């Protein structure tokens, strides 16, 4: 077995993978973005409910992929909830790798950093209100293309 810091499948990470924090959708998302790693097929979507002052009221993720990609997404939405947009802007890739905990080879760092990239884009991706009759997720659509239809 690898040394502790190299153990990808350690308790903390498996916890996030198998019992993730906020896997699902915001009731009233104001921002969202999704992306994938075409080479391995990992997909992550992050939805944010940002209040007018720029504070993250709620953060949710959804997606599909390896343990690292999905655990990292769970960790990052937990980490940024309650923080403000400036905090996210200053949250570096290096800090994301540190937050993840296990030391990763460059190839698997991509799995970990997918949700970090998605989050960085999400704060610049406000959702357009489609109509005001709908409730929750069906009433809002991302301004950009919906990649989930491609999978």
């Amino acid at each position, binding site marked *: 077995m*690898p040394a502790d810091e190299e153990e*990808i499948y350690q308790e903390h990470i*498996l916890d996030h993978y198998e019992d993730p924090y906020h896997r699902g959708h915001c009731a009233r998302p104001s921002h969202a973005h999704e992306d994938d790693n075409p080479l391995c097929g990992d*997909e992550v979507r992050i939805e944010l409910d940002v209040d007018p002052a720029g504070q993250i009221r709620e953060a949710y993720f959804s997606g599909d992929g*390896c*343990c690292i990609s999905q655990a990292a997404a769970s960790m990052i939405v937990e980490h940024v909830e309650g923080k403000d947009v400036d905090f996210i802007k200053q949250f570096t890739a290096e800090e994301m790798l540190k937050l993840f905990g296990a030391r990763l080879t460059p190839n698997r760092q991509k799995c970990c950093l997918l949700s970090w990239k998605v989050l960085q884009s999400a704060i610049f991706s406000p959702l357009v209100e489609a109509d005001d009759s709908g409730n929750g997720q069906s009433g809002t659509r991302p301004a950009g293309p919906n990649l989930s239809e491609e999978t």
Partner: protein
Amino acid sequence: MDALATLPLDPQALRADFPILSTTIHDNVPLVYLDSAATTQRPRQVIAAIVDTYERHYANVHRGIHWLSDQSTDLFEEARESVRAFINAPAREEVIFTHGTTESINLVARSWGDANVRTGDEIIATVMEHHSNLVPWQQLAERSGAVLRHIPIDDNGELILDEFDKLLSERTRLVAVSAVSNVLGTINPIEEIVRRAHAAGALVLVDAAQSAAHMPTDVQRWNADFVAISGHKMLAPTGVGVLWSRRELLDAMPPFLGGGSMIRRVKLDSFEPADLPAKFEAGTPPIVPAIGLGAAIDYINAIGLEKIHAYEQILTRRAHDVLADVGGVKIFGPPLENKAGIVSFTVEGVHAHDVAQLLDRQGIAVRAGHHCTMPLHKRLGVTATARVSFYFYNTLDEIDLLGRALADAKGVFRRRKA
């Protein structure tokens, strides 16, 4: 143990020729190499041929009026003759050395394709093609205005030939198909596909990258028009591949890459192309990789492709049994009798990358991902699979180890679901 006595070849004796297979990794775990569809390993006989060429015979080919160049040229042309015999080509000049299967296919798409394919024409590929036998045709379709169509597969991962018949028409110019799928392991009915394509007036390109090292290639029996082969998937170095085609087709095709070697004479504003095969071998060719390919063919011939294929079927059968025992494993591809030594699968609750990562800890090298077949994975309804692929140097024990390691991998996750 009875089975061992009746194996068509002796894997332990052959393994001794592959130094890398005795490697231990991760603090003394023996390496189990189950990724030969990505690239095979090389026996010391091939490595020795490479070293010997560099140490004693190396110079540029077809150029120098000197002893060393003659030596190098002789070895290079002997390798061409080895390839000719290996694929039962009628003539040595029809064997073009390229830098790999990808270049071979691109050569056809660029040279034959640009000269012959027009707006409204159709090219037929299959949904199981490797990107290297798909993207060049997409590019050709874009350049020419032709339409690209795809033969679908059934749920066994076999081509639906009735649908192929519906796609064929007088507009079809070329059918591009792999002899063996690099994901499903499906052995495609090449002779039948060629017969139907020719009846419709279309040519056929066969991507033989996954078949050439594992079962006999007979370009005359196939009656195909273009056949592409990769060196590194058959014990030879990277950087060499082969394109075979019929002389009359190659003669009629314009050169692909321009440069040295491919010319007969050059003026300031024009050139005359050289005769075959030099016409398609611009620049200094992959001299030593080609010589290595010749040595690889000698090695494969000494074992015999029929025996290799028979042995791989035994390995594949064991893999199917072992994976079924693990439970929660879904195997993609056809029944065993129509399947090469390639098994792709998913494990319930464990992503393919985690499968590969956890197997690696036990020294087992497998591939995980889409294996350069994104459209096929979309058809299969999965984003990624794990793939094990075999060659004659793999053993039944290694496959049993795979089964135990997979059970362990499942345990990493399953224990927490309770």
